[in-house]
Every structure is written in structure tokens, then in C-alpha cells.
């Protein structure tokens, strides 16, 4: 089974065993592949013939596929023992680009999921986008750029890298949501997203600049945490709290967590459906992994002996997360109850899910973050699958409202079944990945701090409420009489346009059910990944000294 690994090693001319210690930049080979694809792609997109412009889609797909293969290869080379195939017991955390990026297990795993997710988005977006703006091929390239930003976010270990990665994802997302610029809704969504997103970035940057100053001029996460701990100036505590609140406000915007969620329904509603899928999945995963790194490494809530902001701010942090979690859950679920557009419904459902995931941050413990990571991966696939079907319905009927789904089972029985599985998983019904995600998350949060019992009861109540609007959609599809839009659909499947969507849906169903059945191993992997983030923080003392001398 080792032949692909050996082949790649031979290709890189790297002696076995030195891979993860000396060849640091090789950890970014997948990102390099994406960059090369981008350069070739923009050259192709500006080409004169239609055929060359169309080839950009295929190029982007294979570029992402190649990056996915490289990322998987890097995971096996760096983190698993080549003889036994098991994970290395000791933490592997490689500083890349002067420690701007930490190539650790968390980075490795999350970028595999990100590349896979983006690949699926490119796959099912093609016919939808080509229907509306046939001659432009830039769409998949901007998706590639946004993915690159999200991947760099998951590995960021430096304020500068964090900012640049956030903006790479952000600016690409603004362009994507306004991609159909002749459509008033799309352009307006893009403008709203840009203004809200820009303000959020500025607020977060102001917090960063305060942390930079208070830490004594450091930008790397662990060094900032140590700098803050070393000063121990109690008169600066208010400033530290302000900096923390500003950074969290910026994050709340990016994650569309209440009370900063107002942009999300409008932007999700106005954007093209594949873009809505991308925003609700890829950018959420990237932002949450970055939030884990920021909370543990930058704000130093983690390791004993380097409690960066002190006990006072830790409780402030925990309280802020609790407020964000409660308001997101309640606002998301209650607002979703009275939506008539599927895209808006999914937007509010995303806000609610962000609320559940934020529960893990209330207790500020690695075990809870691990369940949050599990939740995110499960969420990526169930939401992408649901959006693939929403895209299909949208491209065949031209409608996004709930009533367009009435009686879908008469024309598309298998698609109805798949969408029902995704919706039940989003609601948290057993044997799907969504159930185990919620179960693990709530259980771990409660175990970590029994005082959160009230929060968990509230989350369970909210899950019950969410069941109503998910089941309502299923009821419409299965029981209601076919709507005019559905009745007009041809009975025969158009494989040329529907084929990619079917492939994506099959993959997502498989992962959603598979992660339900094999939940323990996946969660175990997430636990190891998060535990290794902790050890990386503790071992950064050596780097701290080498930075000073």
C-alpha cells in the first residue's frame, strides 16, 4: 500500500524520514498546485475561443483534485507511521514560512475536507452558472482563490497570515456573491457582503493592532500569548478585554453568529445557489478552525503556565461565547420557522448550527473543540448535499421558494430521498452524522463543565424547534400535490446537466451515513488533532527565545 507514498518521495528526491523535519515548504505543495492552476486558469479564461474558456472548469476541477491528492499524501507522509499506518504518537507541528503557518494534524485534516468540499462545489456549480452567464469561465477560479484563503486560515499561526488569509477568502467571496452582476439581487448581496465584511475586518484589525502593541511587538500567536502573560500589567486589562471583544466581534461577523448575523440571510438569498453553498460550508469551516487557533494559541486559554489573559478575561471570553451561542441558536431557529425561500431557510439554519458549534467554545477545552471539528465536517457534507439538490431544482424550475418543492417525489424520488436524509441529518435524527455530531458536542460540553446544563437544555429545545421546519419541507416534497413548477419537469433525467449533481449527492449521502456509522474513529482523529495543537503551543518557548536572539 506504500507505493504512492514512495513514488511521491522519489519524485521529490527526499530521503525517507527527513520529510517532515527538513523539507518544510513541501507541506505547502497542494497550495502551490492551486496557485499554478489559478495562473494557468486566468490565462485560459482570457483566451479568445469559447472552447478554451470552457476548459477552465475542467482545469479547476482537476487542479482541486490534484491538490486533494497532494494534501492526502502529505497527511500520510507527515502524520502516519509508514510501517504500521498508525498515527505518530508524538505531535508533528512544522513551522512553515517562518512559522507563519503551522503544518500540523489539524491543518492537514481540515485542508483535505476543504479541497474535497470545493471540488464538489465546482462539480455541481457548472451547469447552473453556465445557464446564467455562459461565456465567463472565471467562476471556478475565484472558488479556487477562496479555497486557498480558507486553507491558509486553517493553518495560520501569525496575525499577518491570519489577516491576509481572511481577506483572500473574503474578497473572493464578495466577487462570487456578485457574480451575476446583471441580476439586481446578486449585485446588492455582493455590496452588502462587502460593506459588512469590510467593517468586520477593520474592527478585527483594530483588536489585532492592540494585541500587537500589548504583547510587545509580536505577531505570531504563541509569542503574542507569551508577551501578554509576561507583561502582567493589570492596568492594561481593560485594553486587553477591548481587544478581545473587537476580535470576537469580527469573528462573529465572519461566522454569521448573532448578534452580527443580519447580513447572512440577504447575502445567502441574493447570491447564486452554488455560492450560497460555498459560503455556508467552506468559509464556516475555515473560520471555525481559525477561531480554535486564535482562542487557544493567541489568547492563550490553553496551556498551564501560559494563561495569557489571566482568569478574568478567560471568564469574559467564555461569557461572550455563551451569549453568541444562545442568541445564534434562538434567532436562527425562530427566524427559520417563517421563511418561504429555501435559501433564506438554509441561511437561518446555518446561523442556528453556528450557535450549536459555538457551545464548544464556552468551556474553552480541547476535547470540546474536537467535537466541534467533527460537527463541522459532518455539517460540510450534509449541507453541501442539500445545496446540490437545491441547485438542481433551481436550475430546472428556476425557483427558490419552498412551494416549488411540493410533490417533488413524483418526478425525482431518489433526489427527494437524498434531500430528506440531509434534512434529517441537519435536524439531528439518529444514524446520520448530524445526530452524532450533536450528541458528542453536547455530551463533551456537559462533561467539561456541568454548569453548562442550562445551555445544553436550550440547545436541545432548539433542535426540537428546528425539526419542525426541516420536516415541513420533507412533508411538502412527499405528501403535497405537485406544484406547477414540479409538474412541468420532464420525467426523464437529463444526465448531461444532472449527472454531476447526482455524483455529488451520492458522495454526500455516503459520507453523511458513513460518518454516522463510523463516528468514533473520525472523532478520535479530531481529538488527536486538537490535542496536538495544545502541545505545539507548549513547545513554542524555544521559538520565543530564538526570535529574541
Amino acid at each position, binding site marked *: 500500500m506504500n507505493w504512492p507514498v514512495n513514488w511521491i518521495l522519489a519524485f521529490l528526491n527526499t530521503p525517507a524520514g527527513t520529510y517532515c523535519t527538513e523539507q518544510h515548504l513541501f507541506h505547502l505543495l497542494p497550495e502551490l498546485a492551486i496557485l499554478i492552476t489559478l495562473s494557468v486558469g486566468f490565462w485560459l479564461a482570457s483566451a479568445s475561443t469559447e472552447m478554451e474558456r470552457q476548459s477552465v472548469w475542467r482545469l479547476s476541477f482537476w487542479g482541486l483534485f490534484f491538490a486533494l491528492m497532494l494534501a492526502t499524501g502529505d497527511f500520510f507522509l507527515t502524520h502516519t507511521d509508514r510501517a504500521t499506518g498508525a498515527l505518530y504518537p508524538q505531535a508533528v507541528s512544522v513551522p512553515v514560512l517562518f512559522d507563519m503557518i503551522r503544518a500540523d494534524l489539524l491543518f492537514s485534516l481540515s485542508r483535505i475536507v476543504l479541497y474535497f468540499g470545493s471540488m464538489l462545489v465546482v462539480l455541481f456549480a457548472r451547469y447552473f452558472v453556465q445557464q446564467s452567464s455562459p461565456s465567463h469561465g472565471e467562476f471556478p477560479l475565484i472558488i479556487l482563490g477562496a479555497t486557498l484563503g480558507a486553507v491558509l486560515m486553517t493553518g495560520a499561526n501569525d496575525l*499577518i497570515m491570519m489577516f491576509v488569509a481572511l481577506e483572500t477568502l473574503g474578497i473572493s467571496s*464578495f466577487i462570487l456573491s456578485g457574480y451575476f452582476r446583471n441580476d*439586481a439581487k446578486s449585485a*446588492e448581496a455582493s455590496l452588502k457582503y462587502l460593506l459588512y465584511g469590510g467593517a468586520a475586518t*477593520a474592527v478585527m484589525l483594530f483588536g489585532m493592532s492592540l494585541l500587537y502593541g500589548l504583547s510587545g*511587538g509580536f505577531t505570531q500567536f504563541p509569542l503574542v500569548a507569551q508577551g501578554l502573560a509576561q507583561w502582567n500589567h493589570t492596568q492594561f486589562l481593560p485594553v486587553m478585554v477591548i481587544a478581545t471583544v473587537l476580535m470576537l466581534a469580527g469573528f462573529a461577523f465572519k461566522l454569521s453568529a448573532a448578534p452580527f448575523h443580519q447580513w447572512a440571510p440577504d447575502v445567502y438569498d441574493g447570491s447564486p445557489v452554488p455560492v450560497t453553498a460555498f459560503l455556508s460550508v467552506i468559509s464556516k469551516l475555515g473560520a471555525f478552525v481559525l477561531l480554535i487557533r486564535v482562542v487557544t494559541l493567541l489568547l492563550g486559554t490553553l496551556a498551564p503556565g501560559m494563561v495569557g489573559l489571566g482568569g478574568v478575561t478567560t471568564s469574559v471570553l467564555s461569557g461572550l461565547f455563551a451569549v453568541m451561542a444562545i442568541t445564534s441558536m434562538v434567532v436562527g431557529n425562530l427566524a427559520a420557522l417563517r421563511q418561504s425561500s429555501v435559501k433564506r431557510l438554509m441561511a437561518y439554519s446555518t446561523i442556528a448550527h453556528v450557535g450549536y458549534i459555538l457551545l464548544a467554545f464556552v468551556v474553552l477545552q480541547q476535547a470540546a473543540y474536537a467535537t466541534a471539528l467533527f460537527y463541522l465536517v459532518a455539517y460540510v457534507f450534509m449541507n453541501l448535499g442539500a445545496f446540490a439538490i437545491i441547485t438542481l431544482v433551481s436550475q430546472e424550475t428556476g425557483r427558490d421558494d419552498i412551494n416549488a418543492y411540493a410533490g417533488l417525489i413524483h418526478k425525482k424520488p431518489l433526489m427527494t430521498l437524498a434531500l430528506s436524509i440531509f434534512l434529517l441529518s441537519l435536524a439531528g435524527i439518529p444514524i446520520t452524522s448530524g445526530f452524532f455530531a450533536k450528541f458528542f458536542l453536547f455530551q463533551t460540553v456537559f462533561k467539561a463543565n456541568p454548569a453548562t446544563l442550562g445551555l445544553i437544555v436550550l440547545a436541545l429545545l432548539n433542535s426540537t424547534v428546528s425539526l419542525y421546519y426541516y420536516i415541513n419541507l420533507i412533508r411538502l416534497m412527499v405528501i403535497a400535490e405537485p406544484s406547477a413548477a414540479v409538474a412541468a419537469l420532464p420525467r426523464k433525467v437529463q444526465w448531461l446537466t444532472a449527472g454531476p449533481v447526482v455524483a455529488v449527492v451520492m458522495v454526500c449521502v455516503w459520507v453523511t451515513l458513513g460518518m454516522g456509522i463510523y463516528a468514533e474513529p473520525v472523532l478520535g482523529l479530531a481529538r488527536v488533532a486538537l490535542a496536538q495543537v495544545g502541545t505545539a503551543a507548549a513547545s513554542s518557548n524555544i521559538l520565543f527565545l530564538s526570535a529574541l536572539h
Partner: protein
Amino acid sequence: MMTDFLTPQLPHFLILATTLFVIGLVGVTTSRNVIRVLMSLELMLNAVNINMVAFNNYLSPAYGSGSGAQFFMSGQAFAIFILTVSAAEAAVGLAIVIALYRKYKTVDMEQFSVLKG
């Protein structure tokens, strides 16, 4: 004493930056003109730049020269990154405003109301 007060120190820069930031924030939240909102955004980002450069200069002043001099320039580098990225963001923002202006013949935020929040 008077000269001490007049010599620019770190707090002066921080007060200036905070004032600029608040002006920008107020501009972003209250303006109806999109161009003005974009300008206020730039104001907020420039306030951050002032903070970064002031902190860097305070923490690691460029005293001394030759091999003994120590420089930590991450704040200045950060400011350059912020400048670059905000230019990209402004370019995208203005492109969207032009697309909307072609449709509505106005840059008034209140007129863009297809999406009901």
C-alpha cells in the same frame, strides 16, 4: 514640561488612531451614500495602520546602526499588508458600485432594497 506635552508620544498616536477609527465606524453605520461608506472603511483601516506603525516605532525604535541594531519590523510590514489588501477591497467595492449604478442610476443605499432583511 510644555515641550514634553507637545512632543509626539505613543499616547498621542493612539488617541489619533482611536478617534479616526470611531469617525470611520460612525461613517460606516450612518452614511447612505455608498462611496462615503467605502471611504469610512478606508478611514478605519488607516486608523489601524497608524496604531501598527506607532506601536512598532515605540517598541523597536530605529536607534543605533550597524550590526548591533535590532529591528522588529512586523508592525510596519503589517501596515503594508493592510494597505495592499484594502486597495484590492476598494477595487472590488467600486466595481460593484458601478454595476449597481448602471442599474439604479444612484449610489443611495436606501434605494438598493430588492433583498428584504
